[in-house]
């Protein structure tokens, strides 16, 4: 493969590299084969049902209002007919205004009623629509939070964002402008058909001949546009994924002049999105005039045939006029309805995507009948634990290990030796493929999430801070903490001094992603947050790498107190952190090759002794 150059035309796939034989980023929620699509379709209908169910009473009321509104609207042409056929003759013959005036009054009443019911309906439907949207947002968000890390690693943050923003938008667009017109169209078809039959049945039968064509056209549009809109949902998430990732790494983008290439990629995915939309739009461009054509042909036929009937005295002229008016009332909104039908299709595609997410089961599932664990001692045990991220590559072949309560254990070893994997198993980000991990003798898989998280907390090198104040970020470890507790945690870890020097102290906004704080400061905040959580088992995964020596020294000193009465797993390449440990494990390819107190290992001639010597040399 030749190296990419800027002159080369953009190959949308080449730059991305290979992730796996198949597309590993596709989770079941993103599957596009026929069977999955059919399954998602039915799931999305179930989802819709469950969303609507709580509102069924108000919805019934809304439908009644809509019916009244429809009747009021339908009364118009009928009253026109009455006015012409029954109002004019008495006026002409006897100068009697009675019929005409009552027609006028009836017309006014119908209009007023139409106004009131429409207003009430819009209010109700708006409320229900928004409530459904609110419910759906919450459900999807909650489910995302529940899904395991392995899912998130495959699904990626960009897609999650796409589901919760752009997909919700297309549903909300339909909720905002579509529902009543959609329902009204259905009502219209039925009520117009009935009225037409009632007015003049031979003419009505001629009209009804157009219905099969309408149905056929709609069915065609439905199946085609479902596919087209599914594609728009998929392409828009690619746009969002690239957008979020490239702007999230804007520092590197600027520093390495990545802008032109980013622009190329963005335009390419954006173009795909545009093409997907274009396909959908072209379908409407056929569907909508198609409806119009059917309507117009019908009107022309009715005009001729109706005229013929009037000519031969088989129909009254007023009936004929009303008939044509009804037809227009039927086809006119239907025309613009194609647009709403369109947003319905778009919303359905979005709903399918969301149903796909809700359909995902967490790999790390909550136990159905959890073992209660109120106060954990913190004894950890690995029993014949086997683990691999991929089936063909075991990270831990077989691990047997007991960490007594209160012990501080340092894990060292080369990159890829499985240190972080051990941490992830203890914090149950993953479940072992074989064997079990126990806390106080209880399998982690039998613990309720809240109990487990109260007992086990991990601090990583990532140090992600949420936007908000320093105080809020520390309180993340214990949301109901008082200000005094928060400050105590910060003091204990040695973060108080820098926080006190910030413009608004604990109330200072950490800005997006903690951008204003330095990496070291963020690490300190992350430490304080873990300290505040006060777990029985604390895992530190390279948690001091960004600290300068004075801060590290403070943290070191704090750790000795903090870790005194709890179990701790410390993963570090800096041996300064390791030295506070009671016990050191040296890991190689998932196997513990050395195990002992730091002093024992230093005096030996194993790897740790080597590492230690190198580290001491590095201090000079």
């Amino acid at each position, binding site marked *: 493969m030749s190296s990419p150059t800027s002159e080369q035309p953009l190959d949308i796939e080449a730059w991305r590299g290979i992730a796996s034989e198949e597309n590993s980023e596709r989770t079941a929620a993103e599957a596009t084969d026929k069977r999955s699509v059919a399954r998602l379709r039915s799931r999305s209908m179930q989802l819709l049902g469950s969303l609507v169910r709580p509102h069924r009473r108000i919805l019934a009321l809304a439908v009644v209002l809509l019916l009244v509104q429809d009747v009021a609207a339908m009364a118009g042409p009928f009253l026109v007919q009455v006015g012409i056929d029954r109002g004019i003759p008495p006026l002409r013959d006897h100068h009697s205004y009675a019929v005409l005036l009552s027609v006028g009054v009836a017309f006014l009443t119908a209009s007023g009623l139409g106004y009131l019911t429409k207003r009430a309906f819009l209010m109700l439907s708006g409320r229900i629509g928004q409530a459904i949207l609110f419910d759906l947002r919450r459900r999807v968000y909650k489910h995302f939070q529940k899904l395991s890390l392995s899912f998130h690693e495959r699904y990626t943050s960009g897609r999650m964002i796409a589901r919760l923003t752009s997909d919700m938008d297309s549903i909300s667009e339909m909720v905002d402008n579509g529902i009543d017109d959609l329902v009204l169209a259905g009502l219209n078809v039925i009520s117009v058909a009935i009225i037409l039959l009632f007015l003049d049945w031979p003419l009505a039968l001629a009209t009804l001949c157009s219905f099969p064509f309408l149905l056929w056209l709609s069915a065609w549009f439905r199946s085609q546009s479902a596919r087209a809109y599914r594609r728009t949902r998929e392409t828009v998430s690619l746009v969002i994924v690239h957008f979020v990732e490239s702007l999230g790494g804007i520092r590197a983008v600027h520093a390495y002049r990545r802008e032109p290439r980013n622009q190329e990629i963005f335009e390419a995915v954006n173009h795909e999105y545009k093409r997907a939309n274009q396909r959908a739009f072209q379908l409407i*461009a056929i569907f909508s005039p198609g409806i119009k054509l059917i309507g117009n042909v019908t009107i022309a036929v009715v005009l001729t045939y109706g005229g013929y009937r009037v000519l031969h005295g088989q129909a009254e002229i007023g009936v004929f006029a009303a008939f044509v008016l009804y037809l227009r009332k039927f086809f006119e909104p239907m025309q613009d309805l194609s647009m709403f039908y369109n947003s319905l299709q778009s919303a359905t595609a979005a709903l399918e995507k969301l149903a796909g997410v809700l359909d995902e089961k967490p790999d790390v599932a909550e136990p159905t009948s959890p073992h209660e664990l109120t106060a954990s001692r913190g004894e950890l045990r690995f029993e014949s634990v086997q683990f691999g991220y991929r089936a063909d590559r075991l990270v831990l072949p077989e691990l047997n290990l007991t960490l007594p309560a209160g012990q501080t254990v340092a894990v060292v070893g080369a990159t890829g030796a499985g240190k972080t994997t051990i941490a992830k198993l203890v914090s149950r980000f993953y479940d072992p493929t074989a064997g079990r991990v126990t806390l106080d003798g209880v399998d982690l898989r039998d613990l309720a999430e809240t109990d487990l998280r109260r007992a086990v907390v991990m601090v990583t090198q990532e140090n992600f801070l949420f936007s908000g104040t320093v105080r809020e970020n520390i309180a993340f470890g214990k949301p109901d903490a008082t200000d005094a507790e928060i400050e105590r945690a910060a003091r204990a870890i040695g973060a108080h001094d820098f926080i006190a020097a910030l413009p608004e102290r604990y109330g200072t906004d950490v800005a997006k992603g903690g951008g204003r704080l330095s990496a070291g400061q963020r690490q300190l905040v992350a430490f304080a947050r873990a300290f505040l959580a006060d777990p029985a088992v604390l895992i530190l995964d390279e948690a001091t790498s960004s600290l300068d020596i004075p801060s590290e020294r403070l943290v070191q000193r704090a750790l000795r107190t903090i870790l005194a009465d709890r179990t701790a797993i410390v993963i570090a390449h800096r041996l300064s952190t390791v030295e506070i440990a009671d016990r050191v494990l040296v890991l190689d390819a998932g196997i513990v090759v050395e195990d002992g107190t730091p002093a024992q290992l230093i005096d030996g001639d194993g790897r740790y002794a080597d590492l230690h010597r190198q580290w001491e040399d590095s201090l000079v």
Partner: protein
Amino acid sequence: MIVMLVSAGLAVGASIVVPLVMQRVVDGPVRHHDQNGLIWFGLAALALGALEAFMVFLRRWTQSYASLSMEADVRDDLYAHMQKLPLTFHDRWQSGQLLSRAITDIGSLRRFLSFGVIYLIVNICQYAVVVVLLIRLYPPLGALVALSAVPLFLISRQFAKRFLRVSRQVQDAQGDLATYVEESAHGIRVVKAFGRRHHMFTRFTANADKVYQLAVQRARLDSRFAPLYELIPNLSLAVIIVVGAVAVVQGHMTLGQLVAFATLQMGLVWPVESLGWILASGQEAMTAADRIYDVFDTEPTVVDRPGAVDLRRDELRGAVRFSDVRFSYPGSDTPVLAGIDLDIAPGETMALVGVTGSGKTTAVSLVPRLYDVTGGRITIDGHDVRDCTLDSLRRNVATAFEEPILFSMSVRENLALGRPDATDDDLAEALRVAQADFVYELPWGLDTRVGEQGLSLSGGQRQRLALARAVVSRPKVLVLDDPLSALDVNTEALVEEALERVLAGTTALLVVHRPSTVALADRVALLEDGRITAVGTHSELLATVPSYRAVLSAEADDRPDLLPEGKGVAAR
């Protein structure tokens, strides 16, 4: 656009003519029992109907190209503009707000332009044409229909004003929600580690509830105004029937004219009614445009000055000088850097040392102009960095960030970020320097995708790739921001050894936390309280500057009892 308007106009024209045909049918063939005439009129109606449908097709088809191309173009431009905006902008703006502008707002703009605008113009034209026809049919009633536009106009003005305010609030709240979602997605590990999903969910609910409340408020406003658009044409229709019937009796109108009149007026109900939602979507589009312009109106501040010079690599020596450099973040009155003076000779390696939060990272970010100084200047070979073209500046200054940023793409693409024409040999050499040979053991070697959507690498691995990336671009000036913090001692020593060779011909600025890394530097500068307080070799400073010792010395007062058997001291 012209095709669209013409086809829309013709379509409306055809739809207006149909009732007139009807009138002729009633007054002509039907009255005169003319069967042939009837068939001719039927055929005419058919032809008109087909024409109308064809025009609708034409309009929609062109419209789909026009509006979608517009949408894609605006989105491309917006993205380009966002990429151009400086870090200060990105620090300040919530990412979700940017996203909702790029996706949702541009979308609603397109929706309005593709449906709303056309309908607005077409409907108003239809209204005008119909009114003229009505006036010609029977002036008194026609005038009445024309007058009904007055209340419609007044209502629309009220509606527009109020709707604009609420819709901006809704869109802003949606942006906030998007921001929250984005954070939850990126911080998912922390949320999991602390088991805080219920807490996150509660806060999400609060955000979603705000959107809900505002959206309901918007729906309420809509429900108060939209039905009026239906009421008014219906009321005029009621009057038409009564007055029209009287007029027919008095002989001012024929029966056919009345039928046509009623039909035409009936045909107005829908266009007028739809004005309600057209206006609403118009308001939304206006808000969207406002929000998009918030971004477009932000001028990129870090840009090429007129007459900026190109730094040519072969002529560049790489002398970097900070002269009285000052910097404070926008909106903050505490300066991070309060006058730095520092001279780095070509080829020299200078380490920056200081406590956490002392501004080291900020100082080195100023060299490639990730931020611009707020006072003083930085020069390379005597050129103020602000007088150089950004492209040449950043080509010659490469940065490895402390937090390695890898994009979801192949290792090769990640490494060649700063130099797309790098050969595999160049990459191999850089990987050797950074001790990142592990990439060859990845399933697809250099083609393996890494980053969020690819293989996840450990912190140390990512840091080494970021370092290799900086080396690949063969810069004249290399900025390394604590580039070895996540490496173990063993690897660190190897990297340092290899780096030594690279640094020989390169001017380098290192941000350093550890004595072992300081060994790479020829000289060290101590950054305290926004100023450089000492410059010298590591051993000089260690011997003469107490505060330097405090920051960098592993030897601390409580050290001996921390180290088992006092080994740390013995090693000194």
